[in-house]
């Protein structure tokens, strides 16, 4: 791998930028790998990366139905935070956030990680109590957050309207070290590092079946022919249920559409991420100046990667009341992604009823922020059979009633 540096840019500038190699190879699949990972989004690539980096397992193929990072990795609103209530969640999200801090240097790829701070607005008395509780829980978990009053919110976000008639801002949960990162770059950076370790990323390769032998996974059938493997990981978010059906088990997941939209670019006016969970809207400003807006998820099963118009209306209506300055902004783009929601709104990182087959799914609306931590935990789970990061998120927690109940913690889909 040729390293990216200021010197490399200068060198290439002198020879008309003809010396840049491809960031990752696109080979045809071989017949057999030690590990096959389905889904070359952030989670699949991060799992592969840490399998190689932490455990030296590099005979790995990452299969992708579409193009690299073209699913939810390229469709989210890029928010990174770790202010969760439950210990298991705080551990994996905080691991993830802390890995993001140095990931650009580690991967030698600029992820544009911007720890600009995240505020979750408290707009009802119960939210105030809830976030105070989360701030105390975070203090015990070693996650730096604090509950701040409305004056401090106004200081951090001058464009906010504190006295909305229906939902005044009563305070907020502030995580100064949360922020955003360039979502595509996370996939690209991991892909480049995986390819450098000799792993093979195979795009436009759709898995059509999962083969088993003696109750153990033997390989996958794809549109590019059969591929054998010892271990198989499914990291396909919204389509997890479809692959699980091929493997012969069911998952406690429902796939629903979640959508986001961006406005035309405007001058810098907000340098933190603001989430308003009661009114279902959140917003940040991208480096290009676009206001990036996300809202609530649909309530019914949907695989179309489109959202509903009334959700856009609800989200924008709420945000216009919170930020009157944006009322005449034009929206540029709107898109949807398919998220896989579990009953307790926590992910599933687990072994499955099929030996040798692992799942990484159920991230629902919060998958992007967790990419490095989830990859770290999944790699350990696959290499060693268990991981302190993933033990709380096993599939049998539903049977045993050990929920990691985050739907209550956030009050909404998050």
């Amino acid at each position, binding site marked *: 791998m040729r390293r990216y540096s200021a010197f490399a840019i200068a060198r290439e500038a002198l020879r008309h930028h003809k010396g840049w190699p491809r960031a990752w190879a696109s080979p045809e699949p071989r017949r057999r790998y030690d590990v096959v990972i389905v889904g070359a989004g952030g989670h699949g690539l991060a799992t592969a990366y840490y399998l190689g980096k932490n455990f030296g397992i590099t005979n790995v193929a990452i299969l992708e139905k579409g193009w690299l990072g073209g699913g939810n990795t390229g469709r989210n609103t890029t928010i990174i935070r770790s202010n969760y209530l439950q210990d298991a969640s705080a551990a994996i999200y905080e691991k993830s956030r802390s890995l993001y801090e140095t990931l650009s240097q580690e991967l030698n790829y600029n992820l544009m990680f911007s720890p600009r701070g995240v505020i979750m607005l408290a707009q009802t008395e119960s939210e105030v109590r809830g976030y105070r509780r989360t701030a105390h829980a975070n203090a015990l978990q070693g996650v730096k957050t604090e509950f701040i009053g409305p004056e401090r919110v106004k200081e951090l976000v001058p464009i906010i309207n504190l006295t909305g008639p229906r939902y005044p801002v009563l305070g907020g949960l502030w995580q100064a070290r949360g922020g955003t990162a360039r979502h595509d770059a996370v996939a690209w950076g991991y892909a480049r590092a995986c390819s450098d370790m000799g792993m093979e990323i195979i795009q436009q390769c759709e898995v059509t079946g999962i083969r088993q032998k003696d109750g153990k996974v033997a390989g996958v059938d794809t549109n590019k022919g059969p591929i054998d493997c010892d271990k198989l990981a499914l990291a396909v978010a919204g*389509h997890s*249920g*479809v692959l699980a*059906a091929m493997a012969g088990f*069911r*998952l*406690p*997941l*429902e*796939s629903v559409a979640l959508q986001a939209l961006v406005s035309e670019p405007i001058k810098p006016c907000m340098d933190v991420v603001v989430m308003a969970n009661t009114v279902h809207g959140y917003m940040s400003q991208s480096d290009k100046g676009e206001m990036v807006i996300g809202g609530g998820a649909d*309530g*019914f*099963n*949907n*695989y*179309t990667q489109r959202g*509903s*118009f*009334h959700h856009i209306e609800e989200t924008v209506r709420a945000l216009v009341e919170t930020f009157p300055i944006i009322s005449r902004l034009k929206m540029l783009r709107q898109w949807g992604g398919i998220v896989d929601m579990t*009953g307790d709104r926590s992910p599933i990182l687990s072994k499955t009823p099929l030996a040798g087959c692992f799942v990484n799914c159920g991230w629902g609306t919060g998958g992007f922020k967790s990419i490095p931590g989830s990859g770290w935990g999944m790699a350990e789970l696959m290499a060693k059979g268990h991981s302190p990061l993933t033990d709380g998120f096993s599939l049998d927690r*539903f*049977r045993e009633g050990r929920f990691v109940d985050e739907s209550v913690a956030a009050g909404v889909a998050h």
Partner: protein
Amino acid sequence: MLILHCPCCGVYADETELAPGGEAHLTRHGPGSSDEAFTSYLFARKNPRGVHFERWRHAHGCGKWFHAARDTATLEVFGTYSAQTTEPPKAIRDAIAKRRPGWTWRGIA
């Protein structure tokens, strides 16, 4: 926008008027059933990419529950029917089979 016909009051209602209620035709397991059956009833879902049967409530209308047959990959609606049944009626099954040749209800033509 998703528009469903409420079989209880006859109104064509759009999704803002309706509340989704999850997968239909689940077998309810209660006391005396095995752990596996109970877990499966509570949590495991088909979540298919294709033909799906689900429960809906006409929340901002007559308030009654009904069932709908939809395709989750195309958002096509095959029809709605009364919730007082354990399987989709023949008319609905025929409507689906017409649009999706080869489709069968739980493997039965």
